[in-house]
């Protein structure tokens, strides 16, 4: 909450002005009944026509002042609310960008999105309401009570009584209905879920002719929901009639008791009328106050979710004294007895991993799902930090680089092609430093990257070519096209090391093949690290690491591994046919045999 408090504190003077406007406005509202009472007492009962006119003008002036006060407070309430929302969103967004993947995983992407959008909106709405109603109600209530006491102290108990009854009714209602609201929410979620299931599985539902079952499931959820709905609704419709009943009884009581007071000469007739209005104002303020109490907690949940983000510590920190590598070494990633364990996990994902990539050579990592392949990839750009051991790039520990320096050396192609809204060019040029080279050189680089990634053909067919719009999330291009553009993005970065995290799966065989040939042109002296599922795609790598349950089960070339590594052989057997396997094994025998001689 601390950070949010800091944001709000910036607006202290605006809040002060808001309160000022509020006081003026409340003062004006409370002034009117009193002035009215004087019209009755002095003007009508006293028969003074001039006084009535005079008082009338005064009242208009007071009304005007009150209106100005209200506009001033409304202006600042809106500014503070929107400003607070803007600053909070900004704070969350930059915080999230600093998060390591570990923190992103902790919150989940979907939750981070809701926290930045819906939760902030919720807080803004509540804040504005609090600033307007939440400040007005107590000021008004206290002011009206003071006035009421001044007007007819002997009738104050009526106000106390009415507020008491009103409070009791409201509390009972809240206690009964609030828990049902929670149930209502969860039942709505269930209805949503059931419908969503039916929609996402529509083919399966029909294939098994289970439409009736789905309808029954839905109807059950539907009925449960509507039962709670009825209850809540019927409880809520009590509120308005009962509250107005209490208000009416209050005014009646005021007149009745007031009659006696007038009879005994304690108050005048005008005071009775003023008191009646004060009493109503007190009760209205009280109602508003209760309403803020009911509505405000909704924002507390959002507030907590926001401050969870703002107060969480980044686990990946910039080094105090960043180092630069020796200019001579390029493209050498070295894992030295690396172990990695997720925070709080029992078993390590990786243990005792050591290997080294060489410039101009391809290192492939293969293994089943959950064997830790992607984790290895994530350790290089410091999405996570190792638990023990070290990862060095060009001789410098990755933890000693600034994040920018480190990542500028890496061209990562993730498993799923990820694009952002913008143009083809803005996507490919994402990793190119702004303003470092001329626009023309930039453009040439982008075009070259796109060509190598085998994307020129479809890019040129798109409306606008390199300037063609890419929709949010790249939804207007196919999976394979996304993949090729994200490969182009990595190429345009001119990195020292390419990392392909199972990046060829969305491509068909032919494109895949062409792309591999073309890539040779740029990878040249860069090191290439490929994570793969299919042996066919990595057969020719200079070095293959076989990963099994987080440990290296074998290291070598395709044929070496076929011969000596059991895990590798199993993978091969599941992917090759029997005859292919036989042929491969034969080659393996021959080649490695030769090597031994």
């Amino acid at each position: 909450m601390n950070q949010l408090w800091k944001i709000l504190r910036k607006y202290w003077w605006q809040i002060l002005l808001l309160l000022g406007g509020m006081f003026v406005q409340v003062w004006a509202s409370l002034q009117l009944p009193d002035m009215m009472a004087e019209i009755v007492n002095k003007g009508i009962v006293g028969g003074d026509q001039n006084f009535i006119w005079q008082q009338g003008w005064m009242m208009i002036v007071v009304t005007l002042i009150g209106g100005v006060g209200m506009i001033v407070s409304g202006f600042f309430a809106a500014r503070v609310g929107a400003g607070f929302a803007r600053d909070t969103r900004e704070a969350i967004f930059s915080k999230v960008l600093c998060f390591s993947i570990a923190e992103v995983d902790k919150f989940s992407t979907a939750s981070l999105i809701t926290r930045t959008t819906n939760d902030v909106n919720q807080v803004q709405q509540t804040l504005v309401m609090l600033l307007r109603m939440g400040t007005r109600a107590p000021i008004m209530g206290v002011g009206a009570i003071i006035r009421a006491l001044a007007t007819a102290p002997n009738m104050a108990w009526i106000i106390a009584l009415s507020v008491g009854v009103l409070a009791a009714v409201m509390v009972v209602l809240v206690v009964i209905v609030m828990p049902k609201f929670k149930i209502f929410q969860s039942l709505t979620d269930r209805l949503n879920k059931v419908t969503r299931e039916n929609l996402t599985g529509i083919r399966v539902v029909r294939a098994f002719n289970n439409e009736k079952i789905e309808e029954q499931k839905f109807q059950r959820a539907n009925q449960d929901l509507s039962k709670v709905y009825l209850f809540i609704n019927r409880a809520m419709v009590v509120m308005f009639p009962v509250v107005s009943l209490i208000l009416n009884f209050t005014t009646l009581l005021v007149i009745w008791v007031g009659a006696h007071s007038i009879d005994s000469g304690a108050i005048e007739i005008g005071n009775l009328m003023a008191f009646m209005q004060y009493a109503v104002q007190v009760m209205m303020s009280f109602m508003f106050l209760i309403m803020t109490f009911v509505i405000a907690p909704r924002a507390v949940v959002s507030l907590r979710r926001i401050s969870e983000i703002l107060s969480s510590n980044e686990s990946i920190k910039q080094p105090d004294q960043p180092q630069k590598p020796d200019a001579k070494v390029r493209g050498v990633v070295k894992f030295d007895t690396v172990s990695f364990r997720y925070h709080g996990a029992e078993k390590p994902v990786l243990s005792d991993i050591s290997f080294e990539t060489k410039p101009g050579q391809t290192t492939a990592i293969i293994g089943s799902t959950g064997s830790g392949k992607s984790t290895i990839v994530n350790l290089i750009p410091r999405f996570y930090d190792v638990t023990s051991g070290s990862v060095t790039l060009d001789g410098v520990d990755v933890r000693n680089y600034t994040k920018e320096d480190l990542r500028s050396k890496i061209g990562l192609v993730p498993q799923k092609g990820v694009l952002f809204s913008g143009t083809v060019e803005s996507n490919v040029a994402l990793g190119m430093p702004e303003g470092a080279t001329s626009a023309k050189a930039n453009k040439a680089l982008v075009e070259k990257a796109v060509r190598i990634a085998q994307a020129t053909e479809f890019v040129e067919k798109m409306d606008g070519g390199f300037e063609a719009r890419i929709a949010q999330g790249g939804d207007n291009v196919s999976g394979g096209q996304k993949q090729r553009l994200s490969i182009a993005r990595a190429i345009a970065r001119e990195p020292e090391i390419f990392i392909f995290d199972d990046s060829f799966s969305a491509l068909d065989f032919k494109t895949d093949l062409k792309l591999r040939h073309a890539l040779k042109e740029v990878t040249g002296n860069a090191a290439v690290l490929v994570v793969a599922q299919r042996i066919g795609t990595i057969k020719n790598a200079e070095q293959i690491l076989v990963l099994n349950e987080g440990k290296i089960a074998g290291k070598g070339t395709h044929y070496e591994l076929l011969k000596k590594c059991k895990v590798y052989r199993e993978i091969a057997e599941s992917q090759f046919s029997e005859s292919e396997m036989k042929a491969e094994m034969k080659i393996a025998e021959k080649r490695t045999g030769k090597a031994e001689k």
Partner: protein
Amino acid sequence: MSEKTDDKSKRNSAPKNGPMAGMIGEKPKDFKKSVGKLIRSLAPHKIAIIATLILAVASTAFSIVSPKILGEMTNQIVKDLMAKQMGFIAEFDYASLARTALMLISLYILATICNYLSGWILARVTQRVMLNYRRDISQKINRLPISYFDKHQYGDTLSRVTNDVDTIAQTLSQSLADAVASVAMIVGILIMMFTISWQMTLIALAVLPISAGLVGVITKRTQKHFKNQQDELGELNGHIEEIYAGQTVIKAFSGEPKVEKKFSGINRQLYGSSWKSQFFSGLMFPIMNFVSNLGYVASAVLGGWLAINGKISIGDIQAFIQYVSQFNQPIVEVAQIATVLQSTVAAAERVFEFLEEPEEDDTGTAELGAVKGAVEFLDVSFSYEPDRPVINSFSASIKPGQKVAIVGPTGAGKTTIVNLLMRFYDPSSGKILIDGVDTRTLPRSAVRHQFGMVLQNTWLFDGSIMANLIYGKTGASEDDVKKAAKSAHVSHFVESLPHGFGTQIDGDAEIVSAGEKQLLTIARAMVADAPMMILDEATSSVDTRTEGLIQEAMERLTKGRTSFIIAHRLSTIRDADLILVMKNGNIVEQGSHSELMKKGGFYEELYNSQFAED
């Protein structure tokens, strides 16, 4: 902003997008027609609705007369006071005061009862209406052709079930009675005011055009800012969504500064439109308040003047002031009802639109005996869109028990065959025959009964594993299910779960891995025990061991059954009796592996490229 992915539509179903999103009314396409439909759909509840309205009007009437009576009490007090000062009486006439008070009390209670009753009945009506709309929509979902769902986002349908129905219910339960009561109140108050003093009424009404004009100006300005705010909020949300989803890429490419710059730009714009819309819409209240205070002052002054001249009593002034202060509320409400009504009709329109979508025709009545599994495609042509034919007079004959492999590069339209076989879509010309019977002469359910299906999308629902497996065949015994589970290699892992077959599968919890899910869907197809099978082999994210199990289970599943396999494994392809090669949506070649290799066409190219040395 179009809702593309499933995940996004989840958020779309949240009721509001931003502060006071409801302020901008959506406009219905055909207001009159939709209102007509809405009213007709409420017809079964007409008695209840009319009763509600009568009660609401009655309650309003009772509460309207009360200030006048209250004023009479004040008058009596004034009269008694005068009389006492003159020395005519020693004490006020409390008995007569009490009589008036008693009358008021009964009026108040009557008003409360009527008011509550009206709400009570309306709550029931609303509940029924919601229940029925939702039931109709859910039944409709299962009667629409699959093509509808291939063209529309889930979020779209989902939001009709929840948001749109909610909007209708909201209006019905609140705005409807409120509107009627408000109109009654305006009329009633006007009458009461006129009976007290026409001069004062005219003065009080004189301020109305001022407030109406001001409100109009403000609303117009506000709407513009709200629209901006909504647009900018949408843009910002979109930006946040894609950046968060693509975080690793942003980080890997050090794109943070670029991204933050864009964010700040939109965020700053949003700030502007946000405070403006808040402020201008917030102006409404002070202005109405100011105008009503003006009316208050005017009635006080004029009333005082009239009272001195003996034309009006103090009690009447008091009553009049109460009326003036009550007059604003119903006017605001009536003004708002237009917007509310508009968005309600738009919501209703969406619901009706969905309910009126053309349904899947299902006129076949022919019957199939025990199916052997011969499938014949006779000159089948098909297109998803009228002018873009996908399959052109395709013919093939598959004997019972044969294996058909469907191959082709990604995006070649391999699922089209599945769509046609299952009658998710119907061919535009030609026939598909099962055991010599044209499938179009059969009820769709009868066709689907002949196939077990395992798709790449491993759809399982929230429920126990047992319930998910039995889903394959309603009425299958637990023993059958367990047997099927065993041959699909799932019983081992299921039994190792804490509650065995009773274990609940929850969409988000990762109790079962992707591979295990695939196995479960195979087991489900085994439970179905249909004479023919449709399988999708794609198992990209599965480890080797599970992959082996899946392969084995699939082999068992297809044994002795006519099967159609979207093939990714070379072994499957080579063993197939018939290979359908697809490219750009078309079936370009067909034949056995050796035939196709000999032919040296697209298939050969495809086959070789997978294992070519580079």
